[in-house]
């Protein structure tokens, strides 16, 4: 691991650099010190016209200007007075939460914490990472899982309007419900209610003869309590009771329930998540999320669902007010099968695998590629994620270097291996498989119909794996390449990018990274020649702490995952998914702590997940009212 924040007692090595026109100071090797992190916003800078050297947009989470070397470092607890990094002792342990919170500058700015590095190398914060948030709705996956949990019904997801995304992830944050979306909720609720009536025996506790209003209300109270993540009010109970009775009068017990289920599934109390918080003694400017809001976030992150009875009970009994309480529930939740499915979804969205089903390939060039094969490719990647999670190989290194394939039956011919049971790993030659990036699902998605997309793959590495966003091509620049003749390699054709200044700025950052994957054709199959010509996969990575030449995909991936930018990006993507929002400057301090826990655990994702749910950023919020959506 190079260039990761080293937090040992020793001399500080400070490197001056330029970032987006602003001078920042990157901390490389730090002893006692204190870092002001207020300006750090990962991935928020754009590269403009990509002129000059790449500005690192993935600011190291634990770096920043040294603001004040004289501040004492020991004894700065998190608001709950517990070690900032789980499992790593700090000298602040046990101190009362007497350290004042940070009052936002000007009263309404973001709360900007400072990272404090203790003499034993642990990291803590002087302030509580807490951001302003806004309303969001359940995503399609969350809705589907919730309906499954509540009623045991599988929905046709195409009934619901598409999710809106934040970064690569479906979040449905800060969007209204358009008429088509409201029609979607109506249609989904009606369809779910109809299916639920078909399995009433599994849902209500009374048999045919005893099916009366009392039994119905038992069901309704439990159902709505879980659906709304709170008990019904007296008014609501009376309304649902009346609604049930009206339906029962008309067409009996089941029909009474039908209208109630349709209503609850369209109620904002089911569809929306609001982050609510309460003041904590000794803290100003930030508040701790309520138990229910914390539970909702845990369920979204770890299950893509809503809280179950156990989690809701823990929330209602105040057990989620401490990191330890949150951790206890998170560990339980990680043992449920839904956790693996949530992470299948996470990696699928991060790597764009879900697009594979839209991919079209030229049937003359790739006669075997159809939707069935595309589906098998997607399932392979899903199997890989489940296998990583369940076999405790759930690490950054495994994700990016594993040579495991999951051919099942459908991909055996594709790989030229024997058929395997679904979900069973098969080792490929390590020259042909270097982690999830080289899965056919990812390589085929980042390709055209007749050929690979060198630019698309390079941009994928930059934007998704290094969190370095690239701008659109400038307007009015002719982006067509000269026609490739039979004697030209793809690399020679792309050389045109180097001949125009308007192209070269960005493409010098993109094209080399795409060349690295030229051994994988447009459907992700391994090849050693392209159009009869040998393939040159070498290039140079710039703009990272591991900048330098590489000979092919394996070396490039190694550079990505050992770079500061690659590690920070992985942490950022996890935290975006966890919180269903982009990071804010206030998150930097928590991010630094999560990063350190991740590194301390040899980049094990489970450690990252637990550190995330324990972090202030996950559990606190800035209660300052928003005045416009643009403030986010």
């Amino acid at each position, binding site marked *: 691991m190079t260039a990761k924040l080293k937090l040992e007692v020793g001399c500080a090595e400070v490197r001056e650099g330029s970032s987006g026109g602003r001078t920042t100071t990157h901390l490389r090797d730090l002893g006692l010190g204190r870092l002001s992190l207020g300006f750090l916003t990962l991935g928020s800078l*754009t590269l403009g016209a990509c002129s000059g050297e790449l500005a690192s947009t993935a600011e190291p989470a634990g770096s920043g200007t040294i603001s004040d070397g004289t501040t004492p470092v020991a004894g700065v607890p998190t608001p709950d007075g517990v070690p900032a990094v789980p499992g790593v002792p700090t000298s602040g342990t046990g101190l009362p939460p007497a350290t004042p919170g940070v009052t936002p500058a000007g009263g309404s700015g973001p709360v900007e914490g400072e990272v404090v590095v203790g003499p034993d190398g642990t990291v803590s914060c002087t302030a509580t990472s807490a951001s302003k948030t*806004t*309303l969001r709705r359940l995503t399609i996956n969350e809705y589907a*899982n919730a309906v*499954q*949990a*509540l009623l045991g019904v599988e929905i*046709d*997801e*195409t*009934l619901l*309007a*598409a999710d809106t995304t934040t970064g690569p992830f479906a979040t449905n944050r800060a*969007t*209204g*419900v358009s*008429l088509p*979306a*409201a029609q979607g909720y*109506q*249609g989904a*609720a009606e*369809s779910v209610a*109809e299916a639920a009536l078909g399995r009433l025996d599994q*849902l*209500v*506790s009374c048999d045919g003869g005893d099916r009366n209003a009392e039994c119905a209300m038992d*069901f309704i109270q439990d159902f709505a309590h879980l659906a709304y993540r709170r008990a019904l009010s007296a008014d609501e109970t009376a309304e649902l009771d009346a*609604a049930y009775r009206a339906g029962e009068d008309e067409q009996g017990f089941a029909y009474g329930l039908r*209208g109630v289920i*349709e*209503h609850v599934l*369209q*109620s*904002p109390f089911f569809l929306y998540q*609001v982050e609510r918080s309460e003041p904590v003694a000794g803290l100003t400017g930030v508040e701790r999320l309520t138990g229910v809001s914390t539970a909702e976030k845990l369920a979204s992150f770890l299950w893509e*669902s*809503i809280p*179950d009875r156990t989690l809701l009970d823990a929330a209602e009994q105040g057990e989620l007010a401490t990191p330890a309480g949150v951790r206890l529930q998170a560990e339980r939740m990680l043992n*449920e*099968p*839904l956790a693996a499915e949530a992470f*299948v979804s996470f990696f699928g969205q991060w790597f764009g695998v879900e697009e594979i*089903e839209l991919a*079209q390939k030229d049937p003359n060039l790739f006669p075997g590629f159809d939707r069935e094969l595309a589906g098998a490719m*997607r399932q392979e990647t*899903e199997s890989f994620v*489940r296998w990583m999670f369940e076999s405790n190989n759930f690490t950054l290194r495994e994700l990016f270097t594993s040579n495991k394939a999951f051919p099942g039956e459908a991909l055996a011919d594709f790989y030229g291996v024997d058929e395997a049971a679904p979900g069973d790993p098969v080792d490929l030659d390590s020259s042909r498989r270097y982690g999830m990036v080289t899965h056919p699902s990812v390589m085929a998605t980042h390709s*055209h*119909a007749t050929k690979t997309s060198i630019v698309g793959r390079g941009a994928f590495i930059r934007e998704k794996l290094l969190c370095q966003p690239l*701008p*659109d091509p*400038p*307007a*009015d*620049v*002719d*982006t*067509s390449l000269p026609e490739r003749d039979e004697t030209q390699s793809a690399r020679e054709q792309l050389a045109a990018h180097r001949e125009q200044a308007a192209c070269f700025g960005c493409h010098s950052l993109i094209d080399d990274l795409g060349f690295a994957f030229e051994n994988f054709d447009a459907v992700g199959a391994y090849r050693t020649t392209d159009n009869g010509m040998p393939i040159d996969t070498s290039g140079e990575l710039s703009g990272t702490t591991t900048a330098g030449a590489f000979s092919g995909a394996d070396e490039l991936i190694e550079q990505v995952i050992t770079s500061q930018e690659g590690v920070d990006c992985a942490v950022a993507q996890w935290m975006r998914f966890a919180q269903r929002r982009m990071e804010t400057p206030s998150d930097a301090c928590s991010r630094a702590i999560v990063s350190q826990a991740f590194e301390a655990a040899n980049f094990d994702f489970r450690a990252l997940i637990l550190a995330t749910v324990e972090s202030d950023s996950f559990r606190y919020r800035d209660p300052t009212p*928003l005045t416009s959506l643009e403030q986010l």
Partner: protein
Amino acid sequence: MSKITATSKRAPSNRAIMSKRTGLLTRRNLLGGGAAAAALAPFVPVLSADAQSADAPKRILFYVFHNGTIMDEYWPTGMGRDFELKRILAPLEPFKERMTIVGGVDMDPAPGGAHTGQGMLLTNTEPNSGRIGQGISVDQYLAAEIGQESAFPSLHVGNHSHRTGELWLRRANDPFPAENSPYRTFDRVFADFSAGGDTSALESLRARRQSVIDRVSTDLDRFRGALGSVDQELVDRHLTSVRELERALEASTAVTCAPPDLQGGVDTGDTSTMPEISVLNNQLMQAIFSCDMTRVVGMPVTRPVANVVFRWTGSTEGHHNMSHESPSTDEPLTEIGSWLSGEIADLLARFEATPEGGGSMLDNTLLVFLNPLSNGDNHSKRDLPITMVGGQWHFDTGRYVRYQNEPHGKFLVSLCQAMGVDTDTFGEADTSRGPLTGLAL
């Protein structure tokens, strides 16, 4: 006690894959059984009183494609009333006297970046960094102005378009998604009055829906009360949509026409079914206008940067990819453009074949065929390809008109005025002091 435990045990499955393959007829959802689908009659126009009158409602339909076109094969030869269609528009030849082809109109100032045209095309505002327009789009503006007398203020029916919507906006950053499945469109538009002979099931459904809408509205009011002002604004949008649901429900009781009989079984998740979906959408649109379900329509074909392979026109590579490989791809791109004009011609022919007042439905319809880019190679937003068909109550048709660098905002003003909405600007006022001169009668 109930038996809900809510530790979900949804089995790991390829659910998303499956569901995309099952986006078929779902009328059963609405009518509590399989009876409805069988009961659907072939479409026989049973026109509403309004549609039969001499002053039938005027309608506007935005047909939008992406990634630019091949200009050499798009613009006609000749000028004014003496022009000849070239290959891309040739399938519209039967409607030549109803056409107005408008050249020399630019996005002005052109939005920065390559794939930004769709955010500006219908809003005449500079899109934000997420490529979303910063004001209401002209279809939604017209929906508010002229769409209030029909069941739906507007309907957006896509063909593998962007389901989150990039063209259509209620206001800045508030997209209005299109529905890509004709079957779903059918359900949403016609289900409220398509119970076949089973009127009691229909009445029961309507009553239940009304009651659920009432209670959801009460919940939205309650929920709203405990929120900050920004979140309240989001809930207000939801409330508006629920009121529109209610209005559609109420309007449906007054409709007396029969729904179209759609061929079932088309896989709406597979881009290779675009031709089949196109036919279904065209059928639907004729019926939707016949029943006066809406007067403002968006028909987006694919989405910006979409890489659909139009195999049925002879293409082997994706559309967006080819749009950057001119001139070697000019031939397949021309074929695609021509195919699309043929689909539009099919739609127009259905309108023309539908009697309305003393003439045809087409006499009361304005179809606007647009693309946010002219030349895909350089993402040009100058000399936008604009073709109108119909709108003869307002436009002097049967012409190829060419301007010199007029801002496209003026064209949007022309459209508003054609629909009887009196405005002099649209979006950015400075670039839309319109209308375009010389277009109207």
